[in-house]
């Protein structure tokens, strides 16, 4: 029962991550310019990577209650699985730190290079931008 529950939850996390990856890939093709494409390429994968890694970390525990001859053996299993899960979680923290940094570096390079962002000059955009400036002060 425990094994099935854990497998289903981690499977759901991994599949959810894959859906977000799909969104990132489709967005990369569909969005209009460099900056908007960076949005989907650079960050669609943050959440999806985190979800997949969390799913993997959780899956470590799926056979926690396999046959153990003594309590020590059980804790030995638990210790190994916990350590692997912590390491996998550490990877996702690393992704959370490095992924926005690389996205930002590419965007800044494009901006410094004089690449004009494609913007929609409609009324609501102007109104919105003014609102932001007054709110920020």
């Amino acid at each position: 029962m425990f094994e099935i529950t854990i497998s289903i939850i981690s499977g759901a996390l991994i599949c959810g991550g894959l859906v977000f990856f799909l969104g990132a890939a489709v967005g990369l093709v569909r969005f209009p310019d460099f900056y908007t494409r960076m949005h989907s390429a650079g960050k669609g994968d943050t959440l999806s990577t985190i979800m997949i890694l969390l799913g993997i970390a959780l899956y470590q525990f799926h056979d926690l209650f396999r046959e153990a001859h003594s309590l020590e053996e059980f804790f030995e299993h638990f210790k190994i699985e916990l350590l692997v899960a912590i390491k996998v979680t550490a990877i996702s923290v690393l992704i959370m730190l490095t992924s926005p940094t690389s996205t930002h570096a590419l965007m800044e390079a494009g901006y410094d290079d004089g690449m004009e962002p494609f913007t929609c000059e409609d009324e609501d955009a102007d109104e919105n931008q003014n609102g932001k400036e007054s709110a920020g002060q």
Partner: protein
Amino acid sequence: MYQVLVFFLLLLTWVIFSGLFDPFHLSLGVLSCLLVTWMSSGMLFADRAASVWSRGRQAFLLIGYASWLLWQIVLANVHILKLALSPSGLEEVRPRVVRFRTGLRSEFGKFVLAQSITLTPGTVTIKIIGDEFVIHAISRLAADGLDGAMEARIAAIFEPELGDHLAVVAEGGHS
């Protein structure tokens, strides 16, 4: 005090990554952590003016902030997914460049704010010039997310003396 902290952080990392708890490997870990602490503890925590306890408080509050941020990331990612996958999603793509001034003073506070803005999909920090943030937002909804709530939360952690002022700004942004 900081050296003790650095030593225990290193030791914790050693124990997690080695996974061996016998006396031989643990003593190797203690020895190498002592050596590294002695040689290069100055590389961690560059600003030693703040006390260790205030750092601990910040780290504790940062955990709460990280979980709030994670939820925001999920919400925003769903938004991007909708933009990318739904047939009419492209009409909602209204990219714009938003500029605003931040009240945060410390470099680290600005760094956390920029990183959080970039982490939430739909908004990317392009540049920080002094205390002006240049942000690229992909849609109207994403730009509306930059209402100062994030800034107020960061200020509450790293610069408590600014907290009240920014909270007022955030309230104004919501209405």
